[in-house]
């Protein structure tokens, strides 16, 4: 990645590194974020993949990558990155690897792994100070298996395992805070629908060493039940309603890279998705909508 600083959309890459033709759904918000990130990270990478929708990014003999990729398992992608990074470091030290052959280790996981099964391996990799970038596409459910509730499912959302009128009764886990509590090199939330914000964060991420999380909300037409065409609009609404705060953790401090003014009612975001349809039909569930709004309000009140 070159030295110049991305200031506007005009500075974003116009040539795409990630190959087309993958098996991801039409309108996939995760793939959108991945290609924006990959265009900037470049091919001198090993993408270490955990089980999730993107297991099938590469499907023999087809791969979208111009760099390297290693499929591991749902629980242990950070350990795969550790093995690759350690081996590269050792080979560099022993002068068995020319520096120009060096690679950046990138973990790629969905929320099922990142928030749940892979969390122990992730926490340990951060605590060891592993020099890697961790990209999570968070579509708020076990999407690859049909959108069952995961640890990232938001309050009130209907999933394949919480299909009742109240949807999922629990709360979305705060992965950003969990990462930040480890005091890593960098943590950022992004969304494919805001490519400039995303690009600036990737630029910063590659400029530092150590554990770095890029946590992308991944609007999911299949799992969230909306027209694929609306992926960007729903992504933008997630930011404008404040339900997906764009922020980063650097040098021990959290700052918001976008503070929505005015903040739109969260209902604008919910109403566009089939997974929240039960909040509006057959009768409007004012109580639940208000509950969700109150959570968002509370968050931003604390931001100050």
């Amino acid at each position, binding site marked *: 990645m070159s030295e110049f600083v991305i200031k506007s959309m005009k500075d974003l890459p116009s040539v795409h590194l990630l190959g087309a033709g993958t098996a991801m759904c*039409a309108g996939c918000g995760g793939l959108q974020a991945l290609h*924006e990130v990959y265009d900037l990270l470049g091919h001198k990478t090993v993408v270490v993949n955990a089980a999730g929708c993107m297991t099938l990014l590469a499907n023999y003999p087809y791969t979208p990558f111009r760099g390297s990729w290693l499929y591991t398992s749902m629980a242990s992608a950070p350990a795969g990155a550790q093995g690759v990074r350690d081996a590269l470091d050792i080979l560099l030290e022993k002068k068995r690897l020319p520096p120009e052959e060096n690679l950046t280790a990138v973990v790629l996981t969905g929320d099922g792994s990142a928030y749940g099964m892979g969390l122990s391996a992730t926490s340990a990799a951060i605590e060891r100070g592993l020099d890697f970038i961790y990209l999570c596409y968070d579509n708020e459910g076990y999407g690859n298996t049909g959108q069952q509730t995961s640890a990232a499912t938001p309050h009130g959302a209907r999933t394949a395992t919480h299909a009742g009128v109240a949807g999922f009764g629990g709360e979305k886990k705060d992965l950003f805070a969990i990462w930040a509590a480890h005091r890593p090199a960098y943590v950022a939330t992004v969304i494919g629908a805001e490519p400039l914000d995303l690009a600036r964060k990737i630029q910063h991420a590659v400029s530092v060493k150590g554990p770095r999380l890029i946590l992308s909300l991944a609007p999911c037409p299949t799992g969230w039940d909306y027209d694929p065409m609306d992926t960007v*609009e729903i992504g933008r609404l997630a930011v404008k309603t404040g339900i997906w705060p764009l922020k980063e953790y650097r040098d021990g401090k959290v700052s918001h890279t976008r503070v929505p003014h005015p903040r739109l009612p969260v209902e604008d975001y919910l109403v566009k998705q089939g997974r929240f349809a039960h909040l509006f039909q057959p009768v409007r569930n004012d109580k639940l909508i208000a509950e969700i709004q109150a959570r968002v309000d509370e968050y931003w009140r604390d931001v100050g």
Partner: protein
Amino acid sequence: MFRIRFHGRGGQGMKTAGNILGSAFFGEGFEVQDAPRYGAERRGAPLFSYVRASRTPIQERGVIDNPDLVVVADESLMMLPAAGVMQGVTADTVILINTRDAQGWQARARFPGVVLAVPAIAASPPGGTPPLQSAVCAGAAARLVGVIRRETLAQAVRLELDARGRLMLDQDLRWTLAAYDAMSAHAGCVRERVAERNGVTAAPDWIDVPQDSVRRAAPDIHATASSEQSLTGTWRSFRPVIDPGHCNRCSWICGTLCPDSAIRVDADRTPHIDYDHCKGCLVCVAVCPPHAIRAVAEGKAAACEKIAQ
């Protein structure tokens, strides 16, 4: 035995169509198998489901490669060899296509057997929700096999679509039965076959599997971006078309936001859509600031291309 394949795209409900027909056969006392066929593909990708129905226990399993009836919910699949619509069809197979031009397809496919069109069921009220493809396809298919009574079919629809709720269900039922009624002239044109195993088969061409070098023998891909050989453009039912006169050469909004890296931007900032890979999500249509990209139905777009040529 009856062997029936439903071809459609992810999201068109071919699994449901198979389930409705399966339940209808079951309701008539048949032994039944129905199953969807999954792959890596997602919404929009070609896929199929299949139904077997027999008066004796079924000694087959898996994909049907000798169908008596092939139902095609999306006529664009007819042009796609990878969709496998014509896999194993013979002159005795009936092909039921969701099209206005059954005879045209029969000519193009040079198919000697019967080709029928899925009846066009109007939305009611006009302009309302378009009829559920799975219900219409299942209704038509149920009439063609000639052994499913109207009331049995209705019962199957109630069973399979119950989760859609009372209002939807009534509508689904009307559509299914309308399709069933519309096919009365062809009732029973799909014939039940008696078992035809004659015991004479070619010997398998078994080999001793050779041990290959590690480079070949591991599931590793040394090619880069080989996914581009996968033509996901076939998933599309609508295509985005850029009007160059309206495009303001913004600065790669469509290209950046296209999830599939399927829009390339020239040095002079002119965007080009890669129709080999565009899956037709239409995100570009939604995000283009001057509304210079519109969605055109694939059939229409293909026709326009032909005229242009």
